[in-house]
């Protein structure tokens, strides 16, 4: 069947090459023209982009899609829908599933589940078997299936010797290890950031240093091995300062931050609402400011959602018993546009082409929007004001802490491999 084509009309194309007023013609999953005044043929579909940015689709380095094992909270299919609504054309699914994504078989399974989804689903493999931190998982077998990121996310690799070996082994394969930095012994029993609010609320806390000691250790290991490390969800001023210094030194490291760590603080836990329980925990204002500064200065390479769906009943328990995590895919861009004092092209760098590079997706995702390139795009209305409504979300779960929050900036259309999967904010399938 011949592809009639899609025209995205009236927008401003923004990608790594800059900004220019242009219409975009898409055919056969590719961009075939970027020019002013593209005439649509009678057969082509027209997507209105008036007042909007036409950008490479967003790329999320950090989404928990819960399948296999927790299908009541999210599936690869529903998580991909949630991602598409949020403007993402690619997400990296975290391996803390049940069973963990620690073998070629599970990688194949999850990639298969994502094959027909409305967002390109990639997976991160586990560094250790069962994410137990004891034995190295078969990284090469997973890398052969296209896995480019490996992490035990949900916990950090505690054993420094094992982490060293993993870094050495990974560098041979040309893949990147991503660390969830948390020293288990120092963080033990903590359910929120340790400080003024945990002391007042009587909730056992974990100190910022539980994150920072592992960042410092891994930077030393990066120096030792010359291997690349990506730091997941950095959340403290101390961590950012360590990573900033390491970058100045020339170490091959990158880092991401999550939207909640530049939006919310530990004071938000005061109502004991378990939707505000997340790991790393919400931090004090001074850390929030450091995260924002890291985004401005370039110490931070990516905004990643840490989208962590949980079923209602899982969160309706005492704060100390609730699992950490909050939804992120459908609110990340709006929070970045609302909370950060950054130009749209900077935010797109942090949410599209820079994470695409870290995930090894350059060429497929992250643009640029040029003739012959893949048509993985999102159309963003940066001025649209809206109110977050949990019940309207595409995710199977509802554990967003942002219900009722007024935000600015919304995804109008998302195009995956030439197919408009979201039009005017509505999923098309």
């Amino acid at each position: 069947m011949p592809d009639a084509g899609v025209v995205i009309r009236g927008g401003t194309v923004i990608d790594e090459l800059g900004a220019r007023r242009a219409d975009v013609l898409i055919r056969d999953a590719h961009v075939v023209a970027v020019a002013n005044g593209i005439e649509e043929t009678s057969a082509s579909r027209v997507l209105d982009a008036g007042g909007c940015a036409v950008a490479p689709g967003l790329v999320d380095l950090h989404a928990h899609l819960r399948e296999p094992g927790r299908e009541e909270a999210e599936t690869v299919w529903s998580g991909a829908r949630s991602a598409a609504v949020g403007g993402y054309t690619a997400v990296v699914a975290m391996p803390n599933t049940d069973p963990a994504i620690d073998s070629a078989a599970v990688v194949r399974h999850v990639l298969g589940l994502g094959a027909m989804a409305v967002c390109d689903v990639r997976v991160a493999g586990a560094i250790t078997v069962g994410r137990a931190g004891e034995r190295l998982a078969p990284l090469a077998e997973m890398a052969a299936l296209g896995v480019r990121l490996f992490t035990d996310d949900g916990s950090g690799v505690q054993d420094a010797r094992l982490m060293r070996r993993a870094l050495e082994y990974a560098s041979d394969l040309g893949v990147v290890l991503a660390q969830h930095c948390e020293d288990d012994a120092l963080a033990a029993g903590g359910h929120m950031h340790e400080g003024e609010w945990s002391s007042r609320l009587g909730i056992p806390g974990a100190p910022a240093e539980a994150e920072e000691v592992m960042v410092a250790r891994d930077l030393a290991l990066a120096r030792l091995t010359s291997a690349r490390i990506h730091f997941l969800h950095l959340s403290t001023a101390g961590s950012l300062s360590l990573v900033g210094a390491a970058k100045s030194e020339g170490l091959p490291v990158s880092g991401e931050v999550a939207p909640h760590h530049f939006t919310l603080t530990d004071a938000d836990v005061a109502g004991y609402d378990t939707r505000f329980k997340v790991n790393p925990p919400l931090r004090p204002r001074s850390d929030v400011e450091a995260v924002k500064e890291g985004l401005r200065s370039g110490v931070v390479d990516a905004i990643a959602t840490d989208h962590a769906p949980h079923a209602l009943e899982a969160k309706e328990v005492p704060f100390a018993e609730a699992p950490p995590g909050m939804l992120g895919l459908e609110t990340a861009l709006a929070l970045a546009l609302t909370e950060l004092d950054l130009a749209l092209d900077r935010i797109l760098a942090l949410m599209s082409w820079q994470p695409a590079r870290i995930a090894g997706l350059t060429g497929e995702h992250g643009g640029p929007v040029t003739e012959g390139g893949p048509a993985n795009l999102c159309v963003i209305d940066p001025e649209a004001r809206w109110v977050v409504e949990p019940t309207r979300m595409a995710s199977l779960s509802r554990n967003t802490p942002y219900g009722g929050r007024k935000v600015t900036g919304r995804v109008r259309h998302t195009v995956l491999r030439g197919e408009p999967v979201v039009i005017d904010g509505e999923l098309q399938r």
Partner: protein
Amino acid sequence: MTNPNLLSVADLGADGIEEVLRVTDSFVEVSARAIPRVPALRGRTVVSLFYECSTRTRLSFETAARRLSADTMNFTITTSSTTKGESLRDTVETIDAMGIDAVVVRHSAAGVPWQIAGWTEASVINAGDGWHEHPTQALLDCYTIRRHRKTLEGLRIVVVGDVKHSRVARSGVLAFTALGAEVTLVAPRTLLPPSTEGWPVEVSHDLDAVLPKADVVYLLRLQNERMSEALIPTLREYTSGYGLTRRRAALLQDDALVMHPGPINRGVEVAAEVTDLPRSVITQQVANGVAVRMAVLYLLLAGGAASESGEPALA
């Protein structure tokens, strides 16, 4: 009380605390009667929902409810809600469906009474949530101090021991300071909260230095598991630094009060002889607990029925 619940001492403020203490006086009188029972809450149902063992507090609340002629129900759930199968919310909604007026909650996790208040129309009374708060303990402590001193205004209260893990200390600090007392926390740093920012208190690590000026010494219970968490090396070392030994008791002013929320580890927080001194008001704390809880239940459930003077009609 204007708030339908008693979750935190902060809900009351100084005026609310004064109101409870005033009404408590009437119930102390009731408790002294041959038949210590009034019909104030006849037809009302008070449920105690205890997720943590606490014979003392539960009995105190249930006795208070019965003396007000309320019906009482008791749910003691010692297994954790996650292993038990029924969720906290389901349990609360089940109880709520029975038609109840108040639920008295004890849980090992901070914040649970706040969550429960969102799931029931009944008044929720916090009988201890994790390390966080235990408001009625603070109220009975204020009442006990007031029986011996006219006011807390300007009193020097020294709180000694495991403040970090103590809901008694958190509620106590709020209540004592609301009524104008000056509070000093004395503990090894490992047993203090990570931050006391925003707490209107002094902090000291030298008990000998603060005892001579103290009007009240409030000793907190030390749980045995604190040793396994590397917070203190041995009980002996703790007692020598922070226990109210006979030698230390001699440093106190003659009329200084010695208090403890119970149960006491005799020989650890406080020497056995010291608890028997006249200045020890530990058993009075227990006795006053019932009257204070009667006042709280009365104000929450029959507040509108108070006479013009604000005193309960206790015919």
